């Protein structure tokens, strides 16, 4: 038993020593990294701005740190700067190595590589990334989607939408990537709006609301009659941004939808469109409906017709939502 006790104490001491040693090693490495960064930062800035000529020969570590700094800068920049960063990484060792890591057996290596490829801004990484969108780990797919968006790969539109719709990537990351691809994805989205699965239709319509134009309004109006409440809600919300005059009538009809969140979305969108014709219906909703639609209706009324809002709020039985909206309006 004493042996066990001694063994445990020895183990504890050993762990402590390992910890202390590691801490010291790490601290030294961090200092070295910081110094490297100080050296390469002016170079990175010069590359981004296109000033300065051929970069001087750098040690392997300095090169790695430079790649890192450029990666960080690339996240904040767009335009010419992107192109210059891509030029720097084009045919570089860093690019090849990241591409190679995409095939690694370890999930986190693949994910980290996918992420870095986006920062390097090189369009030639696109085909490999597209293939990697089928990875079986969600973290890798997420990193791939993000990089495809950052690289502006328009061929990625359809695969991204598919992945999004089948829940293989999250709405947040996938949606963001599609937004970065911009109006390129609109034709695909319109097509998606007619698919059998409600998740696909809902996502497509939400995205149309973000990257589409008033020309896409009819798609939204059509979706207001969808059998799925989620799709109707997405459509009602989207029309707030892309809705044209035909949308107004349809949205007013949606104020009678059986589901509260759909009514709320319709009310909000009518407010954004500025539909004066809907004022009396919105007033009714604000007075009598459930919390969410009543709240949205009162807010919408504040945008459309503040005069009648104030008047209605002063009446007895106006209800809390009209009061809140009127008070806010006065500020």
């Amino acid at each position, binding site marked *: 038993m004493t042996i066990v006790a001694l063994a445990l104490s020895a183990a504890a001491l050993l762990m402590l020593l390992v910890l202390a040693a590691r801490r010291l090693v790490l601290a030294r490495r961090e200092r070295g990294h910081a110094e490297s960064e100080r050296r390469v*930062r002016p170079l990175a*800035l010069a590359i*981004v*701005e296109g*000033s300065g000529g051929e970069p001087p020969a750098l040690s392997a570590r300095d090169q790695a740190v430079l790649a890192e700094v450029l990666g*960080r*800068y690339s*996240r*904040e*920049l*767009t*335009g*010419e*700067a992107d192109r210059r960063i891509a030029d720097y990484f084009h045919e570089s060792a860093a690019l090849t190595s990241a591409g190679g890591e995409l095939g690694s057996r370890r999930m986190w290596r693949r994910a980290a590589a996918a992420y870095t490829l986006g920062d390097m801004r090189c369009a030639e990484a696109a085909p490999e990334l597209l293939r990697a969108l089928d990875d079986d780990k969600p973290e890798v797919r997420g990193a791939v989607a993000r990089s495809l968006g950052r690289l502006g790969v328009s061929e990625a539109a359809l695969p991204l939408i598919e992945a999004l719709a089948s829940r293989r990537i999250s709405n947040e990351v996938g949606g963001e990537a599609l*937004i970065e691809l911009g109006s390129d994805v609109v034709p695909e989205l319109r097509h998606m709006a007619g698919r059998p699965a409600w998740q696909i239709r809902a996502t497509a319509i939400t995205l149309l609301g973000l990257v589409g134009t008033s020309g896409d309004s009819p798609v939204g109006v059509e979706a207001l009659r969808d059998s799925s409440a989620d799709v109707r809600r997405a459509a009602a919300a989207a029309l707030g941004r892309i809705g044209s005059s035909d949308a107004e009538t349809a949205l007013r009809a949606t104020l009678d939808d059986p589901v509260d969140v759909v009514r709320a979305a319709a009310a909000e969108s009518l407010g954004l469109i500025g539909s004066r014709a809907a004022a009396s219906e919105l007033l009714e909703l604000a007075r009598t409906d459930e919390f969410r639609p009543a709240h949205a209706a009162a807010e919408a009324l504040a945008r459309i017709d503040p005069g009648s809002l104030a008047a209605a709020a002063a009446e007895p039985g106006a209800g809390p939502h009209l009061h809140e909206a009127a008070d806010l309006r006065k500020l």
Partner: protein
Amino acid sequence: MNEPEAARDLPLVLAADDDEDILELLVFRLERSGYSVLQARDGEEALELAREAKPDLAVIDVTMPKLDGFELTRRLRAEEVTRRMPIILLTARTQDADLERGFDTGADDYLRKPFSPQELSARVHAILGRR
């Protein structure tokens, strides 16, 4: 250290952002474009610098600690010395509501992030060229 404005040979721009990388990129670009640059890492520092040095223009990030871009704009507009100083806000891409607010509080222009350094200097030049 209050320099009389007439004696400055280079226009003075105030750059305020809490992100070190962005601040560096801003400063580099502005200096290369021929401006003298003051740096601030948060809203309070920016306000102090603006009062003391009276820059010709300010580029301000919307999301800063202590005093965010909107509040800062409001304060600058409320004070006599900085009331007419042109302000460009740097804002994250998808916040439409931010833009409304920005213009409400008195900013002159905005630039979305991720931003193009070219565009930044073009906008600064456009505003300062007019004055």
